[in-house]
Every structure is written in structure tokens, then in C-alpha cells.
């Protein structure tokens, strides 16, 4: 096929040929072509097969919005051929056909399977036998689809990233209205971003005779500082955040004002075989001819319901395309355009529309007839030979973003369209989407919207309001009613053959919508979900209105009462990878993390920290702690500095035990509870001086405790207290084991004897030349010192201790060791209902405390009652280590409790654990039955620590 003669405004560069392949065969196009225009120019009408019936599909919209031209490019599926610029060496393949595009065996679904594949057939047909569903699913997925993903993960990956962009005004849509809005707002001093789906801004003007003006507007926008994002569709409206997808970048645009200049979407007509290749929208035909110099066909028939079609017929003829006839559904169409059509020798068939497209593989003709209100042809109609049937069933405002922003849709009888009603604050509409379709009116409406947006931001000079009023008046003058007629839901010639599609994406026919309605899916939302109409890649652009019309006809409701489905993002289908952004996960790491990795630590998540789990031998590490000395990085502990004259009172109010009686340099364990007396966290409190406390929390609870303290501090504003979270500023190392004291004594001038540095004492001093707060506490049950130092020195301190023989150990050995001492882990051994009395920490509640405290009332009540369950230790005589979470069951097998922790103790050579058990079983020697993955395990309760029950080791 040869190209049309060169004309101004064409995008192609005839001096730059580009070679590509389609299904393995070499093709050639020119720079500026889309894949579709190059294919079409080479004579290729069919690009792929359809989703369900495997019907041949090709060019429809010509602007990258429909799903009829989906192809696979260099292995990436779902590329819209009519929007994707051609590149040298592209490898283009058809989708959804096997063994070839020309002969597809699954076409049998269309030829023979129609009666057996109504909406929801797979729900009904493949439900039994249930066990075969995996097989059904595999077959269905391979038979239907929108292309195949690349097989290998690395082939599916490409770099994507976010880019946040704040601006004063975001204009969505780069047509004449959008450009005018952006230009005016920028001229008034606004920081403006304009995003547009096409490769260049200009919109419909580019193909409809206004390319020079459109490009001039775009140039002036750039000169005014507008940032223009091309090939960048806006995906949605999220409370002011508009994600704009542009290739490998997702712009997250936050604007103070938004202008939607999204235009309208030309609508297809519904009639039998309205999907034959060669049936395309008039806009698509115009773009092919005007931008790419490709004649859509040898003979074109235009079918329309409004002036847009007449204009297209004239434009195509002017471009050198033969237009055989125009079928205009308006019986009394008149006026300048109609006269020009007839004057051009084009037959104008008033009051008619296609009632069938004819042809086997492509359009060979159209049957044009007058139709009644139901769409039935009056008479046999007239057959017109053609190879392209360009249709225009009116247009639908592209109002999805406006609706997502909060506008309500209503059906406007005069324009035969759903339009966006009152706009939300800070949102403006311009151009065709706002009803100003004619180019001059669209431009003025854009200027009005741009000025309104800028003025609302306090920009612009004194004369701008007068200018705005003047523009508004001019816009009123330019806004004139346009004669239109709504097409029937479906036209037909009464022969009953052929499928009339309302949704080409999903192969949903008018019959399908009616069938679903008859089954009770008679609201548009239900119909959508049952039939999948509007759920394809084009997001209902070309099927929403058609399906509403069919449903309205079937239910005898008005179009307004049927309404639209909820507008949801994304407005344009977008790869998930583009939404995901860069694959980085915020992780906290201690200052010693890298050193531990060098020492062989395996790392796991612990809350939001990456933490050493073990060094390959957890039991050996635990034994080393108990036999010589071990060291563990506990920098993840939450750490708060609480200071001020009222610091002690604050802590007394927050903890159920007394902190005000702590002497400087002493440490006390504390459990935090909610107002309902439930455990929320625990840790230690060290009094540094009269007005300063050092509070530690669990690793995962640090942020919550800090918020809890801050929240109450705000309420108790009369307390003079300062709170600072120093969790990330301090490294902490727990040096524990019989040799801990000896090791520490070599690193510090502090007297670390038991007399000078007893259990639960805290002292400051240099350790290995590093300023430290040393806390004599023992979570792992051995003689131990927690050394807290500036994180910047954490590694140096770690290295110094390791050099003296302490063996690093990880989280898993720590869990073994603490379990031997029955030290609880909040969150592991407690849940949201655990109270101190039920979690073996009732001793930390001092109800005789003078100071009122959080949870007091609830704890007093709990103290009067026996808790339903209690946390106890258990051992399994058989040596089993039950799964954490396994149920404690009674004689009938009913679950009455739960194993919260269990391990094998290398030191004790037996299994040990903690479990929530009914209170009447919470006594030494009580027998438990554990149901663990189908097996029953016998266990015996113990209420004292498994190791060092009297704490002699700890205090030694």
C-alpha cells in the first residue's frame, strides 16, 4: 500500500526509514510512524485476535486507547500498536492466536461455541468437579488472554522510578483546551505541569487541520515554563495526588489546582459484525490519513450520529481518500457540513446507520438502513461496497478523572451524553469534557480555566479578572447547541446472524448484557462484574455508554437511571512495575550490622530491623554464653531519655510499679499496660539522676511506646518533662556469661565487682575508650552487662569485646536462653488480651502505689478475679518441641490454650516452653495435652524458671 501525498502536519519523516518485523517478517515504516500506521501502510489489517472469541482485530481508535491493536513488542505484551511509536529493529508479534494470526484454532470458540459461552459460563460450567478447577483454570488462561508475560523474571524487569512533582496547576490533556489553560496559568505566574497521552501535545487539532496552531500553542507553553509530559497519561485522582505514568517514570503530581482537559472519546456503533477489521472510528481513520499519510482504505463509508462524521468524511476526501457514502442517523440533517458533503459528490443517506458489516476476514461492505427505536432495520437497507466503515456513534466526555475527584455524573438528554456535574473544589474542566467541543470554544474555555486556577492561587495582575470575565462572555457566545441523535442500543437487520459487540476489549455482545439482565444482573455495576463489560484494557472508554444503552433498553429504565459504573483508577492500564517503583525496602540496621555479617551472621527481619538471627550454630552459641561468654547486638531495643523535674511522676503514671523510688544508678523492670490493663510493652528503667531516666522498650515496640508517652505527655501538659527517642543513636551490646565480668574488667576502669556493680545497677564509664552506660541486667539469665554507647562507636566496642573472646550470638540463641529463665517476650508470649496477672508479670503491678496510673482501675478488677488463662512453663517428657502456636486441648479435644514459645535447651538437654493454659492447670506438675499438627504431645507444667530458678547466677 502506498502512502498518501506529503502534506503539512504529517508526523512521518520520509527520509528516515525504520525496519521492524511483524510475526517474523520484515516490514518497513518511517520515523514518526506508530506500529499500527506502519503495519497498516504495509497492508496489514489484522494485528491480533480478540480476548474471548479470537476474532481478528485491527485498527480502531488510532490513538492508543482501545484494545483492538494490542501486540507484543520485543516480548512485552499488551502494547497498543496505534499509540506506540515505531523504533528501528522492533520485533512485533500478534497476540492471542495459535498457530498463526491467519489461522487460529481457538476461533472455534467463536464459530461453534457461542451458545455455550454466555456470560459467567465458566462459573457455571467449571464448578464441578471442584478438584479439576486447577486444570480448568490452566486451560482457560491459555485460551483467553491479552498476551503472555515474558517467562523469565529478569526479562520482566526494567528500571522504574517515582518522581514527585509539586506544582501550582496540573493540566491533564494536551489538546487545544489544555494547552490554552496551561499557557494562561503560566502567563499569570503559575508553576504548571501539563500531561498528555499522545507523543506530542495538540490533541485532535493535529489531525483535524489545526496542527500549526496546536504546535504554536505548545511552543508558547514551553516558553512560558510549562513542563509538558508527553506520552504520559494521568492514571487517577487520589485526593489531589495525580499519578502520571510516563514510560519508566511514575510522576506523582501534587497540584494546588487541577484542570481536566481530557476531551471526549468517540464512540463506536453497535451492529452485527461491528468488529470486523476495517470498522474503525472516524477519528482513527483521520489520524491514519492526516498524521501518517496512510489511506485507511480504497473506499470508505462513514456512519455518524453527529457533525463529527460529516467533518471526517470531508477531511478524508480532502486527503485523497475515496468516500463512497455517509450514513447519518439524523433524518433531517442539514446545514453547512451536510451541504458540503453533498457538494463534494458524497452520497448522504439521511436517517440511516449500519445494520450489518459484511465480509469474512475484513470489511467488504456495509448494509445501511433506517432503523426504528429498537434498532431494527426498516426494510432491507442498502448494501454499499467498501473496505472501511468509519463510524461515529457520538462521543463520551472523558470525565473519569473528574468523577474520581468527586464530581457526579448525570445524563444530559440534549447532548446525549453523561456529563460531570458540579466540580469539586480546586478542580476545573476545560474543552470538550466540559461541553466546549468546537476548537475555538475549547481554546477559550481552556484560557478561562487556566485563569481561574491561577487567580484562585492569588496569581495574576489587577486586570486579569476583567480579562477573565471577557473570556467567559466570549465563551458563552461560542457555545452553540450541536444537533446530535442518540443511536439505538443495537442496530440489526433482523437476520439474527453475527455478533454485535458493545465491548471489543472483552468480547461482550449486546446479547450478553441482555442475557445477564435476564438473569438478574440488572444494575450496571452488577452487569459489569458478571459480563466483564468495561473491565478490559480500555477501561470502558468505548463500551460504557453502549452497555448502558443496552441495559436501559432491557430494563426500561432511562439512561440517567441506569447511570455509570463508579469511576476508578487506573484510567489507563499501567504495568504493575511502574506502580512499584524502585525495589528498596526501608530497613533499620544497627551500627554493628555489617560487622556481624562479616562474622557469618544470618539475618532476619525483627520488626523494622534487620537483625542477626544466628551465626550458624544457635545451640552452640547459647551454650557458649552459659559456659564462657557471649555477646549479642541489642541495639534494636527502644531507648528513651525522659528528663525534667516531673520525669519520675510521668513514669509513675505510665507504669504500674513505682519508678519514683528508684535511686540514681538503679534499674527496675517495668511492664506497660493499656487503660484496659492489657500488656502493651515491657522493658527497663534506669534512673540516671534525679531528673533523668533511661527507658528501654522492646525492639518492635519502641515507636509505639514513644508515641504512647508523647500522647499522655500532651494530655498532662502541666508536667515539666522532655522526651527524646534515642533508639537509633545508641548501640547496645549485651555481654553475658560466666566470663563477662573478666572480659569487661579488661576494657574499663570501672569496678565491675559484684559488690561495686551489683545486679540491676547502672554505671557510666569508658569501655574500650568508648563512652558507655553499662546496665547490669540479664535477659539471657547469665551474669551480664548491657553496654549502651553512641552508635558511632558501636562497631569499635563490638570489636574490642570480641577480641577478648566473647562469642557473638544471635536472636535464636537469645530466645533459647531467655526461655530457660521464663523471661517473656511481649507479642510472642502475650497477645492483645494478656494482662500482667495472666502473663506471669503480676509481680510488677503495685496496686498499693499512691500514684494513679494508666490501667489501674482495670488491673484492680483483674486482681480480684482469677485470670482465665495463665502463662506457665512446660516441658515435654518425650522430648518433643511443639510448634509455637500449637493448641493446648482438654479431654474432649477442644482448644483451651496455646503454646507461645518452645525450644530445645542444649544446656538442660530437654524441650522447654511457655504456654497459655487454663488457670486451673497453672500449677507445677499439671499435665497438659498439646495438639500439634495432628499429633498429641504430653507436657508437664512448671511455674518456676527452668534454669537458675533462684537467680543466683544472675546475681553472682
Amino acid at each position, binding site marked *: 500500500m502506498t502512502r498518501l501525498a506529503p502534506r503539512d502536519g504529517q508526523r512521518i519523516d520520509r527520509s528516515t526509514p525504520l525496519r521492524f518485523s511483524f510475526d517474523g517478517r520484515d516490514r518497513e515504516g518511517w520515523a514518526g510512524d506508530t506500529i499500527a500506521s506502519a503495519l497498516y501502510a504495509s497492508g496489514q489489517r489484522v494485528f491480533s485476535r480478540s480476548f474471548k472469541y479470537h476474532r481478528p482485530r485491527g485498527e480502531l481508535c488510532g490513538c492508543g486507547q482501545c484494545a483492538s491493536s494490542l501486540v507484543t513488542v520485543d516480548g512485552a505484551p499488551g502494547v497498543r500498536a496505534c499509540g506506540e511509536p515505531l523504533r528501528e529493529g522492533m520485533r512485533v508479534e500478534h497476540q492471542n492466536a495459535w498457530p498463526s494470526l491467519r489461522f487460529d484454532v481457538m476461533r472455534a470458540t467463536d464459530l461453534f461455541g457461542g451458545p455455550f459461552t454466555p456470560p459467567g459460563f465458566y462459573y457455571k460450567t467449571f464448578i464441578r468437579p471442584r478438584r479439576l478447577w486447577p486444570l480448568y483454570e490452566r486451560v482457560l488462561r491459555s485460551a483467553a488472554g491479552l498476551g503472555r508475560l515474558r517467562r523469565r523474571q529478569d526479562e520482566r524487569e526494567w528500571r522504574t522510578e517515582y518522581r*514527585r512533582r509539586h506544582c501550582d496547576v496540573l493540566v491533564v490533556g494536551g489538546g487545544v483546551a489544555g494547552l490554552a489553560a496551561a499557557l494562561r496559568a503560566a502567563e499569570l505566574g503559575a508553576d504548571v505541569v501539563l500531561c498528555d497521552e499522545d507523543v506530542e501535545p495538540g490533541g485532535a487539532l493535529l489531525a483535524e487541520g489545526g496542527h500549526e496552531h496546536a504546535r504554536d500553542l505548545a511552543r508558547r507553553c514551553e516558553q512560558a515554563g510549562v513542563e509538558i509530559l508527553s506520552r504520559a497519561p494521568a492514571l487517577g485522582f487520589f485526593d489531589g495526588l495525580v499519578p502520571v505514568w510516563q514510560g519508566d517514570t511514575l510522576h506523582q503530581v501534587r497540584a494546588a489546582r487541577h484542570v481536566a482537559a481530557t476531551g471526549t472519546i468517540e464512540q463506536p456503533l453497535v451492529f452485527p459484525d461491528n468488529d470486523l477489521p476495517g470498522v474503525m472510528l472516524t477519528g482513527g481513520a483521520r489520524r491514519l490519513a492526516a498524521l501518517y499519510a496512510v489511506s485507511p482504505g480504497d473506499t470508505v463509508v462513514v456512519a455518524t450520529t453527529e457533525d463529527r462524521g460529516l467533518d471526517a468524511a470531508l477531511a478524508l476526501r480532502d486527503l485523497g481518500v475515496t468516500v463512497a457514502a455517509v450514513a447519518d442517523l439524523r433524518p433531517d440533517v442539514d446545514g453547512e457540513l451536510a451541504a458540503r458533503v453533498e457538494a463534494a459528490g458524497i452520497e448522504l443517506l439521511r436517517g440511516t446507520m449500519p445494520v450489518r458489516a459484511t465480509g469474512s476476514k475484513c470489511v467488504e461492505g456495509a448494509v445501511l438502513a433506517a432503523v426504528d427505536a429498537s434498532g431494527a432495520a426498516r426494510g432491507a437497507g442498502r448494501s454499499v461496497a467498501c473496505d472501511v466503515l468509519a463510524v461515529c456513534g457520538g462521543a463520551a466526555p472523558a470525565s473519569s478523572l473528574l468523577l474520581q475527584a468527586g464530581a457526579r455524573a448525570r445524563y444530559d438528554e440534549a447532548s446525549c451524553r453523561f456529563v460531570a456535574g458540579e466540580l469539586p473544589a480546586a478542580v476545573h474542566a476545560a474543552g470538550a469534557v466540559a461541553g466546549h467541543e468546537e476548537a475555538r470554544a475549547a481554546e477559550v474555555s481552556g484560557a478561562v480555566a487556566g485563569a481561574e486556577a491561577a487567580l484562585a492561587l492569588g496569581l495574576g495582575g489587577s486586570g486579569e479578572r476583567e480579562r477573565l470575565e471577557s473570556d467567559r462572555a466570549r465563551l458563552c457566545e461560542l457555545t452553540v447547541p450541536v444537533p446530535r441523535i442518540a443511536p439505538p442500543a443495537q442496530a440489526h437487520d433482523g437476520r439474527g446472524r453475527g455478533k454485535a459487540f458493545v465491548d471489543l476489549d472483552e468480547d461482550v455482545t449486546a446479547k450478553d448484557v441482555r442475557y445477564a439482565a435476564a438473569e438478574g444482573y440488572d444494575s450496571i455495576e452488577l452487569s459489569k462484574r458478571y459480563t466483564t463489560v468495561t473491565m478490559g484494557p480500555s477501561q470502558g472508554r468505548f463500551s460504557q455508554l453502549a452497555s448502558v444503552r443496552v441495559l436501559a433498553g432491557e430494563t426500561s429504565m432511562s439512561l440517567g437511571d441506569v447511570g455509570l459504573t463508579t469511576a476508578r483508577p487506573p484510567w489507563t492500564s499501567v504495568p504493575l512495575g511502574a506502580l512499584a517503583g524502585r525495589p*528498596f*525496602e526501608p*530497613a533499620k540496621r544497627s551500627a554493628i550490622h555489617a560487622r556481624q555479617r562479616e562474622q557469618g551472621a544470618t539475618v532476619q527481619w525483627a520488626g523494622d530491623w534487620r537483625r542477626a538471627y544466628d551465626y550458624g550454630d544457635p545451640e552452640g552459641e547459647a551454650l557458649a554464653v552459659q559456659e564462657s561468654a557471649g555477646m549479642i547486638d541489642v541495639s534494636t531495643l527502644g531507648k528513651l531519655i525522659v528528663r525534667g523535674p516531673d520525669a519520675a511522676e510521668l513514669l509513675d503514671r505510665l507504669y504500674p510499679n513505682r519508678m519514683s523510688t528508684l535511686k540514681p544508678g538503679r534499674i527496675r523492670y517495668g511492664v506497660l499496660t493499656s487503660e484496659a490493663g492489657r500488656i502493651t510493652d515491657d522493658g527497663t528503667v534506669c534512673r540516671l539522676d534525679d531528673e533523668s531516666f533511661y527507658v528501654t522498650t522492646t525492639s518492635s515496640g519502641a515507636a509505639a511506646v514513644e508515641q504512647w508517652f508523647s500522647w499522655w505527655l500532651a494530655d498532662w501538659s502541666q508536667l515539666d518533662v522532655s522526651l*527524646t527517642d534515642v533508639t537509633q543513636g*545508641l548501640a547496645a551490646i549485651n555481654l553475658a556469661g560466666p566470663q563477662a565480668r573478666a572480659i569487661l574488667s579488661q576494657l574499663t576502669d570501672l569496678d565491675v565487682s559484684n559488690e561495686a556493680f551489683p545486679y540491676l545497677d547502672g554505671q557510666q564509664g569508658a569501655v574500650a575508650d568508648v*563512652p558507655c552506660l553499662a546496665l547490669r541486667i540479664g535477659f539471657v539469665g547469665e551474669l551480664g552487662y548491657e553496654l549502651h554507647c*553512641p552508635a558511632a*562507636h558501636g562497631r569499635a566496642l563490638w570489636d574490642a569485646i570480641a577480641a577478648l573472646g566473647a562469642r557473638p550470638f544471635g536472636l535464636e540463641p537469645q530466645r533459647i536462653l531467655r526461655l530457660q529463665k521464663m523471661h517473656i517476650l511481649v507479642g510472642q508470649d502475650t497477645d492483645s488480651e494478656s494482662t500482667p496477672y495472666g502473663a506471669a508479670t503480676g509481680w510488677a503491678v503495685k496496686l498499693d502505689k499512691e500514684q494513679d496510673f494508666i490501667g489501674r482501675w482495670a488491673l484492680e478488677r483483674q486482681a480480684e478475679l482469677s485470670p482465665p488463662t495463665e502463662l506457665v512453663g512446660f516441658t515435654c517428657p518425650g522430648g518433643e518441641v511443639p510448634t509455637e502456636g500449637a493448641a493446648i486441648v482438654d479431654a474432649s479435644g477442644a482448644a483451651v490454650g496455646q503454646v507461645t514459645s518452645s525450644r530445645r535447651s542444649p544446656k538442660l538437654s530437654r524441650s522447654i516452653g511457655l504456654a497459655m493454659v487454663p488457670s486451673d492447670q497453672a500449677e507445677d506438675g499439671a499435665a497438659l495435652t498439646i495438639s500439634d499438627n495432628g499429633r498429641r504431645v504430653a507436657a508437664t507444667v512448671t511455674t518456676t524458671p527452668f534454669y537458675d530458678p533462684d537467680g543466683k547466677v544472675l546475681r553472682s
Partner: protein
Amino acid sequence: MSLDFLTPAGSDRAAARSPLADAAAAAGARTEVRDGWEVATSFGDPAGEGAACRESVGFADLSHLAKVELQGPAGALDAALGGATLGTAARAHDGWRCRVRPDRGLALGALAAGAAAGAGVRALDVTAAWGALAIAGPQARELFARFCALDLRESALAVRGFRPGSVARTPGYVLREGPERFLMLFGAAYGAYLWEVVADAVAALGGRPVGLDALPALSSVDGGREAARA
């Protein structure tokens, strides 16, 4: 007891290390101990690093910058913060005084430790709690746009503007030190993560990590205005 254990006190035996030190070393940093801190002075190409700061974007580890948190009644803080109001910072000697909240501020820089002056104001050394990156160059704002949703346009964050907010999905602060130079503070434990994020983004923009010696002096970044004010 005192709160001295919060303050890094580098010595020959135990130089203070930035939370970004391991990542910087892996990226080829050449280090020296300065004022008790092991700092990355260059990445082996001082000229290229300087060019990045002038022509695209460079980022340098400034975690050694002293940081002191100041808390107290708003009125008392005013004097300690050199008049910095909410959302702004004031230049003080070689450092900054930043207003975080009406009753909380941050003193940054060599003399931060001496910022406790003023009745009713409590100071706490948080140097090690916060990592710091200087981001400089004409592409600095574009770099931020890759991992930070704060509005850093001149109209929203002028020079001396100071914003708490999310940086790379973690809590942090951004201070605009000059037209094309920002200081970003973030939780020290996120250091390795932040380096990964920033290094990835900077590479895509043609920038690079730079050593301290390549980082332009504030006065030159700010066209001399800062020096004149000081």
C-alpha cells in the same frame, strides 16, 4: 550520672563512624579521621566529584555534623534557636538552628553542643541518632523527587527553609542550605538503606557520591550570601 554516654567521643582507638561508613567504603570512599570521626574525604576523583556538584548532583555524608536537640517553652527556645521560626532555620556560626516544633529545635554544626544556653531549655546530644547527607547541584531537587514527597520548590522551601517529613519513606528532615544545596537528616539506623536509595537515584541522574573535600563551601553554593550574613 550524666548523659555523656550519648555523645560520640572519638579517639585514636575508637574513631566515630558514620552510619553510612560501610556503604561509602563499598563505593570507594577514601577516609580520614577528622575531629574524632572517620569521614569520607573523596571517592578517588575529586575533580569529577566537584564537577558533579556543579553540573548535576552530588551527595556527601555529613553524619559527623554535631546535632543537639533543644526542648523547652517556645519563648525560651526562640533565643536558643537564633530566632528560627517554625519551618525555618537560622545560620549560627558554622551551623544551623532549626525549629522542629514550637517547643523543640535542632542545633546543627560544630558549635551545636554549646547551644544549650537559655533558661528552661534542655539540650541533648543526638549526633549519633541522625545520619546526614548534603545534596548539592542543579539536579538536587530532581534527586529528592525520586525518594521524597516534600515540596522543595523555591516558592515552598526557600533557602533556610526546614521541613520535617518523610525521606525515602522514613522520618527525616530537609534543610535548604542554599539554592542548590540541601541537608537531609534521617534516622541513623536507616543509613545503609538511605545510601542505597540515594546512590541508585543519583546514578540515574548522572550524579555521584562525593567526598567532603569536593563539597562546595556553603558560601560558594549560596553565592556568598550566607557568608555575608554571618
